[in-house]
Each structure stands twice: as C-alpha cells, then as structure tokens.
C-alpha cells in the first residue's frame, strides 16, 4: 500500500497504521493522476512541434497533470493594414463628427463604385475601463460609421462592423492626447 510505511521499523508501521485511521481518506497515493495517458501529451515548456510522446512525463507511464500544450497562431494573423482611413471620436461619444464627413463620403464613393469591394470597420476606444465593456463601446463606434455609409447608399453586405475595444491603441501613454488618437474607427479593405 505504501512505500512510506513498508521497510520502516515495526513501531513506525504500527504508528503509521494508526495514522491512516486518524487521517481517514488521506490516501498515500492520491497525487497519482487518474487521467489516462494521451499520446499527444507535450510537457512543460516544450514547443508544440516536439514529436508526440517525446516528453519525460510519459517515461514513467504517468501523465503529468500540469501539462499544457501551447498553440501558436501568429501565422494566422490576417489583420489588414490600416490604409489611413480613420474617423476619430470625442470622449464617451459615438457621433461621427462633421470634420470626418469627407472620410465617410470618399469611402462611400469608393464602395458604391465597386460593389464587390468589402471593408471591415474596426471600432477602438481609449485605455480606460474594462476590456469587454470597451469592446462593446468600440463596436458602437464602428456601427455609427457603418450607419453613415449605408445612409450614403453603400450596401450593408459590403460592410462589417467589429471592435477591438481598448486592445489596439495606436498611441501609448495615459494622457488626453493619446486617448484622443485611440478613440477611433478604422476602415480597412478586406
């Protein structure tokens, strides 16, 4: 049952038996993981490219429960380039200001001239506040630009409004100048 108790002096074995009673369900082997060994196991810090089962954790026939297999999606990065088409917003505002009417109109002309062209409208916020709530606020900015474009005759099928929330600031720093540059919607070709 337990290597801990076996091979000890007799007094200790007897004492150990008493301990087992005292400790109830504290099994000596409870750390042994019940999980089956999976052949895709990769151990700590090992890159995902390592051959399956190559890790030392498998050498004992025991799956290390701490195992985490890393995935790298860097090459999946298909984010478009900015293209210089940006609408900026006031604090806590979703109104497309008059000064950006030109940006919206030129994009509307471009999209109306080529009905096959599709763009992604990315809403962004400044760094203040929660990740998810800012994602929703950025979405509202993207939707405002989308609405401006459809009012100028662009088909909604050419448009998709999405948000990056506060995750992709263009300017670092915690001051109004930086925040003003980050409260924006970017119009990106797809």
């Amino acid at each position: 049952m337990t290597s801990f108790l076996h091979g000890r002096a007799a007094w200790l074995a007897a004492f150990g038996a008493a301990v087992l009673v005292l400790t109830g369900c504290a099994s000596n082997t409870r750390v042994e993981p019940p999980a089956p060994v999976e052949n895709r196991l990769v151990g700590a810090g090992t890159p995902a490219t390592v051959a399956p089962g190559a890790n030392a954790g498998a050498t004992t026939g025991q799956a290390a429960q701490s195992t985490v297999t890393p995935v790298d999606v860097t090459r999946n990065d298909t984010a478009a380039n900015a293209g210089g088409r940006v609408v900026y917003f006031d604090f806590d505002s979703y109104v497309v200001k008059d000064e950006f009417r030109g940006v919206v109109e030129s994009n509307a002309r471009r999209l109306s001239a080529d009905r096959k062209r599709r763009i992604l409208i990315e809403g962004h916020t400044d760094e203040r506040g929660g990740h998810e709530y800012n994602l929703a606020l950025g979405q509202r900015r993207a939707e405002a630009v989308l609405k401006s474009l459809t009012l100028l005759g662009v088909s909604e099928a050419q448009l998709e409004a999405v948000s990056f929330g506060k995750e992709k600031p263009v300017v670092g720093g915690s001051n109004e100048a930086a925040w003003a540059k980050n409260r924006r919607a970017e119009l990106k070709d797809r």
Partner: protein
Amino acid sequence: MDRRLFLQRGLGGCAALATVFPAASQFRVEISGIGAAQVPVAIARFRDEDKALHPVSQIVRADLERSGLFKLVPTAPDNLDENARPVFTEWRSRNADALAAGTVTRLADGRYDLRYRLWDVVKGTELIAQSLAVPKEDLRLAAHRIADDIYQKLTGERGIFSTRIAYVSKGAGRYTLFVADADGEGSRSALGSAQPIISPAWSPEGNELAYVSFETGKPVVYVQDVLNGRRRAVAEFRGSNSAPAFSPDGAQLAVTLTRDGNSELYAMGRQGDNLRRLTTAPGIDTEAAWSSDGRSIYFVSDRGGGPQVYRMGASGGNAERVTFSGNYNISPALSPDGRYMAYINRNGGNQFRLQLMDLNSGTVTALTDTNDDESPSFAPNSRLIIYASRAGGRDLLMTTTLDGLIKARLSPPQADVREPVWGPYSR
C-alpha cells in the same frame, strides 16, 4: 478539537500583523495587510529539497500565508524530516500550533517522492502522514497539494492551492494566454498570437479554456482543450464575438454577439450549437456571469445610462438592476458559494476599484485602494479573489481575501499580465 488549533476566523478579537515571511526571492511573493485570527504554523525545510527542481517547503509556506489564515512560525535552522520526533514543548514555546516536516527524494525512474508529517504540537499528536510520488513536471503541483491538505486539516475547508489560473500577457507585440499554478508560478503557454487575446474563461471541469482571439482580424470566441491544444471556434458570427462564460454544469456557453446590430447576450451549447438570444434591450448587454446554481445570469448593461450590473433568469427575460452606487459598474464575478459578487466600480476620481457585494444584504465593501483594478475572479473555495491591477506602469496580478485584509502580489515571469481567471478544483 483543540481550541488553539481550530481558532475560528473573526472570533480571535485581537488582530495580528501578518508576518512578512522571508519567502525565497524566486517567488517574489509580496504579502501585505493585517489579518484576523491566524493559525500559527511551522513548516520545516524538507530534507533534500535543495536538490529538487522546486523548493517544496517554500511553496507550501507561501501558499498558506497567501490564504490569510496562517501565521508562519520561523523554523530555521531546524533539521527535521517526517521521521523526526519533534519536541512538542519546544514548538509550543515558539508559539506554533502545528508543525510539518518532510523529505524530497528523486526516484530512479525520474519521479519525485514526497513524504511528510503534520503534527498538532499543542496536543502532541499526528494529523497527517503522507507519501506522494509524482512525475517531475508535477513537483510544484505536489507541493500545492501538501499545502491543500494542511489547510484542510487545520481549517476544515478545502484548499485551492493546487488549482490553476489562466491569464494573458502582452509583450513585444505578442499576446500569450498562460496557464499557471494558483500562486502565479510554473506558467505554461497555452496560446500565442500577434493579435490580442482577451476574456479567458475556464470550463467547470478545468480541461478547457474559452477565450476571445483577434487573430482573424476581429474578435472570435474559441474553446481550447488545455491538455492537447485542440481548439474550435464556437462563435464566429458577423460582427464581434466576445465575453464567453461556461454555465456551472458545463453544458452551455453565454457569449456577447453583435450579429443583430448591437452587443447582446446569447446562450449556446458548448460546441456552438443551439444558439439562443437572451437579451433584446436597446444598448449594450455584455459580460455574462452565471450564478453558482446556474439559474441566473448577471451581466453588464447600459440600458439605464452608464454601465451597471443586472440579473436575469438563465433563459433571458426580465432583468433587475443589482448595482446602484456610482455610474460605472462592470465585470461581475459570482462566488461559487453563491454569497458574493465581485465587480469593478469606477468612482468620481476615475479610479477603477474592486468591490464586493454581499448578495443577501446588498452591502458593498471596497476591497482595494488601488486605481486600475480589473477582471475579478473567485477561487473555487470562495475565500480569495484574483484580479488584475497596475503599479509602476505595469499590469500585475493580485489576490485578496474577501475582507480585503490580506493581499498578495503574484509575480509570473511575464512583464505585463492581465485578465486572470481562477480555474476549478483539480481532480
């Protein structure tokens, strides 16, 4: 039960200054605060632990200390192991109520064998005698399990030290989703990307993580098996897909989708099947959090102006407002015992602070005096909250007890760490 050993929290009367134990520099555990009644416990250095990958007794000590329920009695330079017969009167004179000692042995097959005993030095009796043999990758896990067993033996409650957390780090234009031990150490990359990753959420079994990845140029919700890395996009609708939350029974995922025009809550099966819309109010509805019984969903809505926390039935319908103080309350997290909600409040000074609401009384307590708190998440035993904060221009992870008295800064090796989420009890 011995009255010294099993002191109940809150009955102690005299508050004791939390010992700032000289934890090894590699832990960088920073603990601050004044604790209520704490059990004084001595954890001797395990024999031969310096020859092992990790300093087992230091991990155990740091775990117990972070819980806020223990005061660590210095042990050095005692030369003790599990076979020692400690002189209990001597330990009593050092004001220890309990003592643990053990040995770390490297086995021929590469595994580690950990043996230890825990004594009640007041009664002069033995409380635990255990031997654990683990693969070398699980040595830290084994140390955390020892801390869990000691915690449970001395407090009567289940420990959470062998659980895992997930968090996101950002560095050099790269985002990484990490899984780490509950003390923030032993981090392992689960996902790396050049685009942001936000809002990780554990499945109730602890085998999968849901999260939002922007790798395709927009937010999409994925679910990934942590052990083997297999992942699937479960919400990739037109617009933005975000804020995943597993139901307590693991059968459903709540998500925020904008496919119908603005941010609304939906529920779906775990494979992304059987999509149902839960909210229809104009404005933003997001950040779903399930109650522990699975019957309610708490969420953030700006239907009344600024963002506030609301509660509705798990299948949608009428919602009632839950937060009333201040004009910006976000990121609700419900305690597994059903008693508390943690959330973030922005006060008039533009400070974002962790709050705790007692759901029975509605009483709200501010748990911090920091300015940039985010993303609270409860430990599975409802005794600690992990959250993100900021100091010195850096994002960092903190834990706090529910009375706000004992805080610990976790120090994973990555520089900017955020969005911590506490996993369930391990198997």
